[in-house]
């Protein structure tokens, strides 16, 4: 949260889709950050403590794909909400950390906005936070 505005980190390797996703986040009234892959996303998450939600692709170059990244984030920054999108339709939410949402590509902007609003307004705690800044 930054000045009362939720901060969303978009992780997507395709520049065009990333631009679209950032635009979607901004049009929903949130602050948008962007990363090209999981490693960049982790660097950003380490550098600031105001990120509320990560919206990530699954298939990406680098050391982790979006599924591994989402588990890593849940492990290390438990309060951060997660939305995962992929071109593969077979993926089920059961492969993802509890409480995260999955959407297949192409996703509908309204559906994503709706999911973001729900996740960001939910007060469900996922576990004791170890992050002292939150």
């Amino acid at each position, binding site marked *: 949260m930054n000045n009362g505005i939720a901060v969303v980190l978009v992780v997507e390797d*395709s520049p*065009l*889709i990333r*631009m*679209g*996703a950032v*635009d*979607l986040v901004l*049009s929903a009234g949130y602050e948008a950050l962007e990363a090209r892959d999981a490693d960049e996303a982790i660097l950003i998450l380490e550098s600031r403590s105001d990120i509320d939600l990560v919206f990530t692709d699954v*298939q990406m170059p680098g050391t982790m794909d979006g599924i591994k990244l989402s588990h890593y984030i849940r492990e290390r920054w438990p309060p951060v909400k997660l939305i995962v999108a*992929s*071109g*593969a*339709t*077979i993926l089920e939410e059961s492969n993802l950390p509890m409480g995260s949402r999955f959407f*297949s*590509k*192409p*996703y*509908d*902007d*309204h*559906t994503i906005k*709706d999911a973001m609003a729900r996740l960001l307004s939910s007060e469900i705690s996922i576990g004791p936070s170890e992050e002292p800044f939150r």
Partner: protein
Amino acid sequence: MSKTPTVHFEAASTLAVVVSSNEPLLFLSDDQKVIAASASFCRAFEIDPATVPGRRLSELGNGEWAMPKLASLLTATASGSAHIEAYEIELKRPNQKTRQLVVNARTLDDGDIDHIRLLVAVTDVTDARAEARLKDDLVRDKAILLREVQHRVANSLQIIASVLMQSARRVQSEEVRGHLQNAHHRVMSIAALQRQLSTSTGGNVELRTYLTQLCQSLGASMIADPGRVSIQVTVDNSAVEADVSVSLGLIVTELVINALKHAFPDERSGTIVTDYRSSGNDWTLSVACLWGAMHPRRDWGLALSRRLQRT
């Protein structure tokens, strides 16, 4: 086992059958001496037929058939304590590739109980196995390729959808925005079909799931107040070819967009009913608007009926 000093002669017919067997076949005495070997056996395992009769199995060729495992199985078969059915062994020969063999053995039942003899069929399955493995590999490669293609299609559709939505948000003109949003709906309609196809087997599209998903996605993006206007989908168990479903999907997209835009002016409430049913080659697709309780049911005049001519 009785040991008779007299020479035992096999029936000529038995020997003829063994020798001419198309499947590699051995005819053995109970002490595993070769009485006869089929020509196919000698050919398959490169053994000179002239050297075969009277020789021990373990002495055939260069001694490659001296396999303790095989010998003990044959002894057990001769004594009646075991059956060899499709037993797999490896034949190892110097400077040659190991061959995978399937062995079937049984005692010959010709009424002569004093002389136990064995019929041993040996099938070389090396090539068949390799072929099966190759086929498995090909099937796996195909599956990976298909997944990759589906993934790329989904990503490409995402790029188009994202660009259209970005433009729609930027543009000043209300009319142009409408066009861009409609284009976006059409892309999403194709995407819903793509998703449906990637999970279906055989390439036929189950219309109920497809049209329901399609209308849900249209409703999610176009209906501001779900309490006022809703979309209902009633479809029978029809499944159609992918090509046909593309057309049906686009028709439903256009009709539902039209209905959402024009059928509920002035905060009017109601339901859009998308209905599809077929019987034989005939099918009916209709998109109707049911206005709130104050109005009697009235079809909005958008019923399409077509006869599919299958040749």
